[in-house]
């Protein structure tokens, strides 16, 4: 089963796609990356993810798996070679899933707000919320890492992948809004973690540089503006 063909439908600028790439790399899985033009989605994508029509989609033995968090869990369950992505202890697994949900549902959407907010006061309010979230994640890092260098301990794990995949966009957000979000005085653990997580073999060259992402965003905004003015 684990030897069947693996394909990943994705776009390099998507942090959700990046997480799957990191997971596949971590498990040394050979796969075909099918680049999707998100402005002109392929038939394969529309057929594989008819409900959301989004990337990433993992196709394994011709079966499509959607939703990045579940793709990562699927990879961990099917490829049981080391390293494990989720911890082995059920309570640690629950903790990892809790933080993944918090990061995806409560924390990262603040970046969308940051981009759209108007006025200095409103912007400062969103920045404060983002930093408050990072302080919570700092505490989580200290607890989960148990003295080691990653949320997953000695090697990168689930939360490292989930949060790490956003780092390109976090840095892009800092540049675009001219703010510092990861601050050594408030979140020293996370600052150190952020520097080392993307240097890990599995994550190297996966998450694009912030300037690349800013360009992607600008292109998207221009295309949207053009579309809505036509």
């Amino acid at each position: 089963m684990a030897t069947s063909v693996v394909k990943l439908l994705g776009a390099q600028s998507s942090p959700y796609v990046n997480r799957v790439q990191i997971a596949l790399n971590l498990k040394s899985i050979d796969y075909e990356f099918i680049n999707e033009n998100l402005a002109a989605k392929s038939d394969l994508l529309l057929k594989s993810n008819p409900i959301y029509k989004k990337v990433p989609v993992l196709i394994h033995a011709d079966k499509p798996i959607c939703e990045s968090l579940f793709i990562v869990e699927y990879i961990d369950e099917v490829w049981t070679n080391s390293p494990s992505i989720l911890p082995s202890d059920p309570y640690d697994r629950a903790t990892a899933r809790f933080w993944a949900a918090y990061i995806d549902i409560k924390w990262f959407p603040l970046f969308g707000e940051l981009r759209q907010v108007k006025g200095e006061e409103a912007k400062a309010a969103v920045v404060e919320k983002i930093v408050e979230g990072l302080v919570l994640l700092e505490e989580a890092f200290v607890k989960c890492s148990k003295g080691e260098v990653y949320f997953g301990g000695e090697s990168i794990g689930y939360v490292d992948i989930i949060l790490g995949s956003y780092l390109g966009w976090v840095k892009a957000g800092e540049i675009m809004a001219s703010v510092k979000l990861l601050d050594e005085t408030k979140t020293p653990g996370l600052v150190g973690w952020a520097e080392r997580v993307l240097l890990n073999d599995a994550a190297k060259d996966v998450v694009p540089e912030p300037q690349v992402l800013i360009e992607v965003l600008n292109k998207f905004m221009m295309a949207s503006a053009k579309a809505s003015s036509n």
Partner: protein
Amino acid sequence: MEEVKLHGFWASPFSHRVIWSLKLKGVNYDYIEEDLSNKSQALLQYNPVHKKIPVLVHGGKPIAESSVILEYIEEVWPENPLLPKDAYERAMARFWIKFVEEKGLTFYGFYKSTPGEEQEKATKEIMEILKVVEEKALGDKKFFGGDKLGLVDISFGWLAHWFQFTQKLVGIQVIEPTTLPKLHAWINNFKQIPLIKENLPDGEKLLVHLKNLREWLIAEKNLKS
């Protein structure tokens, strides 16, 4: 066996997901009813990030977020499995659980809607969502989990009981044998399972609670407009 406690709220469908899972697995637990207008110190300590119920406390260690709790219960008490063994099927189950949670806002919009364009739009959206659920998630199976209940059924449980009252309050019946026959049949099958039937909030009490909450939400909406 380490002590199991559940902090919940009698009217919450999220609370009931955890109750159903624990009971289906025969796990003994202490239930602590929380007053959401006056949350206990324990709850605030156990779930400082969200300050919400349900929170499961096992051997003194708290787990928050109902979907996280359900996966934890499944792993710690593997008897009477509620998730499929096959990795692909598990990924599909998790997909549907997330799908219905994401659509929660749309259902919430329907719940507090008043007659007019907004309500028509919400009703149409709900119908589309439920058609997808019926065709793609349920299909011809008796339960979402197959022949037996699973976590998807448990996560959709609010459709079987709470949504019935929502439709009554809004005055629009969306799930009917003519419009959504398979889903309608599932509701009956689900509610007939003894452990589910015996663990549902009292209908009359729930209707009053949902009616009051709805009136408050509508009043609040009118104040803002």
